[in-house]
């Protein structure tokens, strides 16, 4: 790794976390292999973090494994796709009055020890949503297929034009949110491939988003839900959603935000 930012105490949660009700939302689909480690690492990062695993209709022992680790499990009766699964977590966080939520994927590609970085802008009050980006700085550790990389770049370029702020990684699910962010996503969250649309949504609701450089790991187990053919569908679907979304007049009112 070429550069490590503040590696002096990577595992220690920031002091300002104390007194905040905070939850980790972990969407998981057939991740019985990777999940225990993710939960352990989340606990190691911050023992005061409540962990909620959203089991998106897994066929394996994902829910049992998570429960055995002492995590709270929200078990969807059938597969909703990542958007619906993650939103379940946001709804949980909103209804249980959490001040702070982080989203960490159950496959282990997000390293919980980097959460301090992702949390920093939110805790400092500089952002409502902070996103761990693989591309802010050229930090190693993450490799993905070429078409997928190109797709991510194109989306990032499009979204940056639309929102008027440089966004480098619109597909990252490594996020931290404050109460306003939680409230927005609990009410309205896109379905199939949610992150890109969600990014645009965040700006339309005038919430502040910041990207933070992170390194992502190889998947710990399971299989990515995005294959080559799906990438194409993904691009088309997301672009359609973005452009149609721009002409949508009634932006969801922000109820329940102080």
């Amino acid at each position: 790794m070429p550069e490590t930012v503040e590696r002096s105490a990577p595992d220690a949660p920031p002091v300002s976390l104390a007194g905040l009700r905070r939850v980790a939302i972990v969407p998981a689909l057939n991740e019985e292999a990777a999940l225990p480690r993710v939960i352990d690492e989340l606990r190691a990062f911050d023992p005061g973090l409540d962990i909620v695993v959203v089991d998106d209709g897994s066929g394996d022992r994902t829910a049992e494994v998570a429960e055995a680790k002492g995590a709270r499990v929200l078990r969807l009766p059938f597969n909703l796709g990542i958007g619906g699964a993650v939103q379940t977590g946001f709804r949980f966080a909103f209804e249980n009055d959490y001040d702070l939520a982080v989203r960490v994927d159950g496959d282990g590609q997000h390293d919980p020890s980097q959460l301090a970085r992702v949390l920093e802008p939110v805790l400092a009050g500089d952002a409502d949503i902070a996103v761990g980006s693989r591309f802010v700085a050229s930090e190693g550790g993450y490799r993905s297929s070429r078409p997928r990389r190109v797709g991510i770049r194109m989306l990032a370029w499009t979204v940056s034009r639309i929102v008027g702020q440089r966004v480098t990684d619109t597909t990252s699910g490594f996020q931290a949110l404050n109460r306003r962010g939680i409230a927005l996503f609990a009410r309205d969250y896109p379905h199939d491939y949610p992150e890109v649309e969600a990014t645009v949504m965040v700006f339309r609701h005038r919430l502040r988003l910041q990207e933070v450089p992170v390194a992502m790991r190889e998947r710990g187990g399971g299989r990515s839900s995005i294959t080559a053919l799906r990438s194409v569908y993904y691009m088309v679907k997301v672009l359609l959603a973005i452009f149609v979304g721009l002409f949508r007049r009634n932006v969801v009112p922000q109820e329940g935000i102080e």
Partner: protein
Amino acid sequence: MTPLAVSIAGALASFTLVLVVLELIRSHRLRERYALLWLVTGLVLTALSAWRGGLNTIAGWFGVRSYPPAVLFAVGLLFILAVLLHYSTVISRLSDQNVVLAQRLALLESELRGRESRAS
């Protein structure tokens, strides 16, 4: 002018559609709100088939001179597209509601299990 046989067949077929839709409503197999488009389709096609002079006139407006029943096909097709599009919106709404139901179920189930384990 439309051949008489075509007019009769068209009118019979369209009217049968109307009857079938009415019967489906009567036996509670089709909700009124979804039946409406079908009923309109059936009635319009019946009218156009039976009213031969009218069909001729309408065909004339669109410059269809050689074979007026082509207008019948066009109108029928248009209505079928409308019905299909309507169903797509219905399906979209249903799947949105389905998502909310699944999420609520997961939240409630977890809440319930939390209470049960605290009680025991």
